[in-house]
């Protein structure tokens, strides 16, 4: 660690340059907060462009447990007895109201309603209604806020997940984590402020690096994926035969060359590069240390479940997420694929829940007992919901559900969110939102609000117009706030 102090004298020039490339406004603001910012400690490299949240933030970090594929809300969170009563009957057109279908079910002659195979029960003092598939989440019923009235326009995975992550169905925009890193900076010198963990060896809908990309924001704000296995971050470790001292000398020289390039080209991305090289150097020490969970006591492994001992599983990633949160990483995004049950739903969803339920609940509890839940937001959800009618043949033991954007559920827990609360409702068929719909943009606006950012004021000018995460939409959902 102390070797890093060699780099300190360089920060003054780097800082100064970085701030002038970002414009006088940034320099002025940062100098207001830190008059000697040009010469201050390395941390000030990490101040976000906003110079502080707009209002008092409720949370300092976000852990987003993204369930890729679209978990079936009707079998997990949204109890619709009517579907069981009318199991097998046609979906009434008055309910469907011409909702477009995916190519997969468009050819179906009938849309038989499919009741859930699972029991729902009330849990905790708040009486949250949850299915038997989620026994551990039921134990934290009093800590979570379930939103049943989420809705989106996207009907297929790529646009839908891009929509959640970037605020637009078309790719090219920065992800939430990048916006936050750009706006609020980092709380940690040695780790990126946006880390991504994807469950290993899961089949399902593909995930792409652009989902945690920085879009048009400076590239040092992109999410960094930490993988399970020998090389958590690709190309981080020195190649065999290269000494750390050699690496240092190489870095110093490389930096000189990059500065020359900057003087010639004036490209601000060069600073992004310098920042990332520097971060990579620090990560050579910090990443192995954080990925090594050997030191965790047994009761922690018991809390998260046996899977947490196996690197790369969702449970192991949840444990890692907690460690990253402790180290000050601002946005930790987990992805778990496999929720896209077009067929074989009753069996497949059981497996999915076994892989995720305990660890998700354990994460919330673990954060809570460490006093971290008060300033962390944990989100659990997918990109859309699933249909109340069966895709493919509806049999007694088996059926599938297609994509359903019109209503789905997510849950959130943590600072600023009402615990033990259920918001929004869908109609009895579980097809349409009946009250208090929350659009993806509203969710993003609320998330920004919890971080203390006014989503309408935090913009970035690109190609002639000002962009923001919520584009030109989104209202903070005040009723969700504690």
């Amino acid at each position, binding site marked *: *660690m*102390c070797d890093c*102090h060699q780099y*300190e004298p360089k920060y003054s020039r780097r800082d100064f340059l970085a701030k002038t490339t970002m414009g006088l406004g940034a320099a002025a603001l940062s100098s207001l*907060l*830190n*008059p*000697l*910012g040009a*010469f*201050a*400690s*390395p*941390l*000030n490299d990490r*101040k976000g462009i*906003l*110079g*502080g*949240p*707009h*209002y*008092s*933030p409720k949370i300092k970090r976000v852990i987003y447990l993204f369930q890729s594929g679209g978990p079936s809300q009707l079998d997990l969170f949204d109890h619709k007895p009517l579907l069981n009563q009318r199991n097998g009957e046609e979906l009434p057109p008055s309910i469907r109201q011409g909702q477009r279908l995916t190519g997969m079910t468009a050819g179906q002659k009938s849309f038989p309603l499919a009741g859930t195979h699972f029991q729902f029960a009330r849990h905790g003092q708040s009486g949250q209604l949850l299915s038997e598939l989620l026994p*551990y989440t039921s*134990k934290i019923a009093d800590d979570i806020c379930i939103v049943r009235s989420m809705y989106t326009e996207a009907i297929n995975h790529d646009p839908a997940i891009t929509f959640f992550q970037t605020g637009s169905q078309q790719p090219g925009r920065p992800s939430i984590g990048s916006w936050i890193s750009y706006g609020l900076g980092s*709380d*940690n*010198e040695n780790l990126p402020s946006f880390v991504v963990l994807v469950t290993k060896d899961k089949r399902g809908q593909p995930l792409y690096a652009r989902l945690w990309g920085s879009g048009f924001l400076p590239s040092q704000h992109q999410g960094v994926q930490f993988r399970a296995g020998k090389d958590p971050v690709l190309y981080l470790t020195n190649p065999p035969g290269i000494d750390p001292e050699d690496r240092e000398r190489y870095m110093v020289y490389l930096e000189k060359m990059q500065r020359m390039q900057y003087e010639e080209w004036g490209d601000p991305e060069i600073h992004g590069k310098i920042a990332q090289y520097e971060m990579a150097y620090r990560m050579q020490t910090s990443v192995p240390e954080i990925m090594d969970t050997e030191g965790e006591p047994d009761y922690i492994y018991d*809390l998260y479940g046996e899977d947490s001992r196996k690197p790369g599983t969702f449970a192991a990633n949840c444990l890692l997420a907690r460690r990253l949160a402790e180290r*000050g990483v601002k946005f930790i995004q987990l992805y778990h694929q496999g929720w896209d049950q077009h067929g074989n739903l009753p069996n497949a969803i059981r497996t999915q829940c076994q892989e995720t339920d*305990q660890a998700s*609940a*354990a994460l919330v*509890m*673990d954060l*809570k*007992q*460490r*006093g971290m839940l*008060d300033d962390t937001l944990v989100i659990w959800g997918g990109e859309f919901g699933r249909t109340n009618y069966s895709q493919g043949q509806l049999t007694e033991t088996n059926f599938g559900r297609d994509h359903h954007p019109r209503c789905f559920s997510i849950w959130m827990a943590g600072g600023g969110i009402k615990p033990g609360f259920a918001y929004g409702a869908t109609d009895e068929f579980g097809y349409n939102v009946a009250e208090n719909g929350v659009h993806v943009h509203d969710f993003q606006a609320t998330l920004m609000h919890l971080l*203390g950012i*006014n989503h309408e004021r935090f913009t970035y000018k690109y190609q002639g117009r000002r962009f923001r995460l919520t584009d030109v939409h989104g209202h903070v959902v*005040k009723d969700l706030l504690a």
Partner: protein
Amino acid sequence: MEAAPDWLLFLGRFHPLIVHFPIGLLVMGGFLAWMSRKPKWQGLKDAVPIVWLGGALFASLAVILGLMLAEGGGYDEGTLDWHKWLGIGVAVLAWATWALKNKPKLYAAGLISSLLLLLGAGHNGGNLTHGSDYLVQYAPNPVRAIAGFPPKVEKMEPVAWEEAEVFTHVIQPILKQRCVSCHNPRKIKGGLRMDNQEMLLAGGDNGPIWVAGKVDESEIMRRLHLPENDEEHMPPRGKKPLSDAQIETLSWWIEQGAELEQKVAQAEAPETVMAYFSSQITGEAGAGTAAADTKTQGPAIDMGMVAELSQIPGLSIQPISQSDALWEIKVLAADSGLQSLEPLLPIAASIKHLDLSSSGLERFTGLDQFTSLTHLHLEHSAISNDELAQLRGLSHLLYLNLFDTSISDAAVPDLQSLSKLGQLYLWQSQISETGVATLRQQLPDCEINTGLVL
């Protein structure tokens, strides 16, 4: 009524420019005529006719332009009428006087009456542009009385937070300061009067200026948000614009339904709006003690000290937000440059959040000086029972994290004195079950967490 063509309005706007020239010429003519009565300046007499001719010519031009300007509308009809006829009278008399230049008595009478009419027309012109109380606005009350104006009203009495109403005490003053100068009975730009509640709600030539609950359909907000050099931007260029806080407050008020009766104390508004309320009602910027969340008071932080402390590697000093006066300090790693709390003590009273969890500090002397503290992170730290006693005076403390510390039952009396405490974390500390039970009893509103099992 058909809108006047653009060229007419364009030319009409030159009236205020052109009109000052004949005023100058005619007054100059009168001045020369007066001075030429003295034998010494007799020669000046010859200059008067040509000056007067110039005055008459340009006065006529000014009348024509004035008539065009009047087509643009938005002027108080009464004053406009007076100004128009007096102005025409000036031009007519100017010509007549020039024509009678060879008849001394009539000439003199013409000069004098022209100038008197000019005085009247000019005064009205000023009233049309600046409002009828322009000259007396800052005059002492006796002068106001002579001029026939009511004595100046004292600045609005400061109103108590509980009594304050959103519309009367916050919204209306914004409109008064920034809008009423052009939207009042004497000057009705756009047919809109904003000085009177009824007229304000009725709107102007284009209808009501807001739609309750719909900021996007509200004309006033549209115009406030236009770029400043747009011709429809309000207030127009040259007039002082509304501040960001004022625009946000108006926007919030319209979004909420533009209620006229709502009380400030019951309003649920975003922080920036609440901060604006405080500044308007109590007169103190960001005082907000009546605001919903627990803003503790504390002295403003010394930026010089912040700059100095920022030199310490591994120490993060940041404002909590742009609207909070207090700051937060976090020590990032055990090898930071901070050896003790001493360097922080000069700014201790301005700190609201303090995170010493990764600090590796051995001694915590000086904790008692952080009097504005609401959140204290001491997890994993070497804090001892003795040092914890310093927390007794921290009456604003809401959150205390002692997870994984050696704090034991001896500290219970100190902990139970923290009456405002809402969250207390004691997992893996040395406090026994009995100690926890005592604390639960003494601090009924506090959530005490001693670890969880699934």
